[in-house]
């Protein structure tokens, strides 16, 4: 099988795959079939929570591809995630139709509230699912393309690049906060009713989106794996480790960076599009610079440059976050910083580095 070949030398990837397959089968069963009284019953809250982690994992995967393999430290990947989320959110808004508080057949509530009479042009087409999905891919790739083209062509690298990616997401956050932008300002987009005609709150819909998230993560993983196993992947590693050398043997480094960056942005955006129907809201907070930094921490904690490490890191850090913000909210940020420092100082290869080391010592 295709995936077999790609995962042949990738134990971590195989583990992730088995876990995803198990989740995609067991979670629907435990939520929809198992009676609520059973110990095996899984609440819809848990399904959505894990579904959310899956989208974070896809985002982490996207970042690991650019950072772990190509050495581009993007501190703005949250922006692509949020843009994908907004595209999905716009579709979901338009599905509300007359069921909004103001009952306007076309305009979302916030536009009626702002006294707008017509739908802005950039909202056209978002009532169509296929169009919204197209935009999920197109908008962030276009932004990544323009941004990357300018940055890589002028050979902006390292810390400077990291700073301008932060500036990018910060600027987008400020812009999306403005009511006049037409994306719901401060409150963002919410109160979604249904998706493709199915009630977005129903257990069955949630389970379907959960399974789709598993599938997206699996497909994203295979795609990334294909890239890193190809010669392109080796060129990208070469760029990470000796950019000038790569250029002097005839590779157009900036094109390789651009391609990887754009592909990664698309993955991040798809993650965002799957995230929004599960959490039921998208607002400018998703563009917050801190969000993008958190993604870097997930990847660092899990293990950079392994792909599966990014996924493990995303789950682990976010599970800790859910746990800690529930029980001891005031220590969460310290814990996050602590994890980052500890992993960079003691586990430069992240948690998965610990296992592969143990594996090697075993023989």
């Amino acid at each position, binding site marked *: 099988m295709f995936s077999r070949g790609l995962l042949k030398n990738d134990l971590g990837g195989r583990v992730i795959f088995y876990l995803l397959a198990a989740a995609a089968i067991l979670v629907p069963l435990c939520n929809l079939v198992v009676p609520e009284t059973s110990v095996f019953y899984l609440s819809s809250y848990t399904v959505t929570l894990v579904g959310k982690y899956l989208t974070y994992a896809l985002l982490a995967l996207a970042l690991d591809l650019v950072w772990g393999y190509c050495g581009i430290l993007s501190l703005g990947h949250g922006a692509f995630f949020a843009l994908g989320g907004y595209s999905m959110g716009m579709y979901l808004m338009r599905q509300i139709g007359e069921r909004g508080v103001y009952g306007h057949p076309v305009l979302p509530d916030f536009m009626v509230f702002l006294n707008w009479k017509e739908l802005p042009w950039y909202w056209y087409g978002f009532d169509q699912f296929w169009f919204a999905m197209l935009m999920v891919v197109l908008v962030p790739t276009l932004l990544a393309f323009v941004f990357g083209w300018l940055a890589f062509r002028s050979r902006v690298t390292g810390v400077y690049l990291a700073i301008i990616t932060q500036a990018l997401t910060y600027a987008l956050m400020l812009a999306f906060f403005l009511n006049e932008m037409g994306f719901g300002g401060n409150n963002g987009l919410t109160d979604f009713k249904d998706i493709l005609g199915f009630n977005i709150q129903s257990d069955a819909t949630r389970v379907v989106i959960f399974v789709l998230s598993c599938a997206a993560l699996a497909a994203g993983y295979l795609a990334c794996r294909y890239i890193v196993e190809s*010669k392109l992947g080796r*060129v990208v590693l070469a760029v990470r*480790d000796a950019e000038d050398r790569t250029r002097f043997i005839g590779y157009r480094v900036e094109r390789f960076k651009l391609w990887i960056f754009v592909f990664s942005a698309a993955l991040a955006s798809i993650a965002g599009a799957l995230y929004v129907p599960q959490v039921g809201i998208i607002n400018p907070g998703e563009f917050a610079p801190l969000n993008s930094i958190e993604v870097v921490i997930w990847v660092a904690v899990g293990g950079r440059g392994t792909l599966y490490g990014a996924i493990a890191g995303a789950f682990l850090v976010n599970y800790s976050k859910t746990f800690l913000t529930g029980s001891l909210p005031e220590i969460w940020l310290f814990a996050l910083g602590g994890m980052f420092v500890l992993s960079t100082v003691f586990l430069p290869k992240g948690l998965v580095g610990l296992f592969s080391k143990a594996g090697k010592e075993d023989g």
Partner: protein
Amino acid sequence: MSKLLGSRLDRMPDSIEAGVDTRHGQVLYLENINVSFDGFQALKDLNLYIEEGELRCIIGPNGAGKTTMMDVITGKTRPDTGTVFFGQLIDLLKMDEPSIAQAGICRKFQKPTVFEYQTVFNNLELSMRTNKNVWSTLFASLSGEQLDLIDEILETIGLVGQRKSLAGSLSHGQKQWLEIGMLLMQQPKLLLVDEPVAGMTHQETERTAELLLALEGKHSVVVVEHDMEFVRSISRKVTVLHEGSVLVEGTMDQIQNDRRVAEVYLGTLC
């Protein structure tokens, strides 16, 4: 080493011959090159001509501008004035690093630079002369002939046993060789080799000399080196750079008997 002479490598330059017009016998022309860094003149009215198939050594004290000259040829540094032509027709000043490399000029850095986290084999594979755009690399796979070429080069640079080792684990001398191997994989017309024997043992140095001599005639090679014994062992013609321009050109014997060269190296002014 002898394998190198009677092998696929012999035919290599043919494939690029068409692109570089060397009818006048010269493969590289540098004329009136001036380069300054924040007011400091690293190259001053430098003129240099390299013949086709020639093995040229360039010596000069630290800071003479040898590396800067290579930077100019390979597109890393743009000169303030001057012209750089590859053959009669290719204006290198209009090209960027990858296109210059693809046109057939390859360089070894002063500080050996290999891809440390990849195997010796992959280092060579990456350097291979082939289509290097994004799409072709995404779907690239090695043909039998390409595999043979890699094996041949592995043998030439004496790293057959290290095929699967990470480049980062090689000794300093082995890294230097790997980098030379990476140049050969590109089947260049012109090789620029910056300090190839720095940090090598005496034996390694001798083997490197053999290797470079084997290239003479088929590739043009420009070697920058401080090791005089090594230069003597390979050189036909030596150019002495000093303070950014050519001081003397000639055979090693002529150079060693030249009063100006002695002054430059001994640091005495008259």
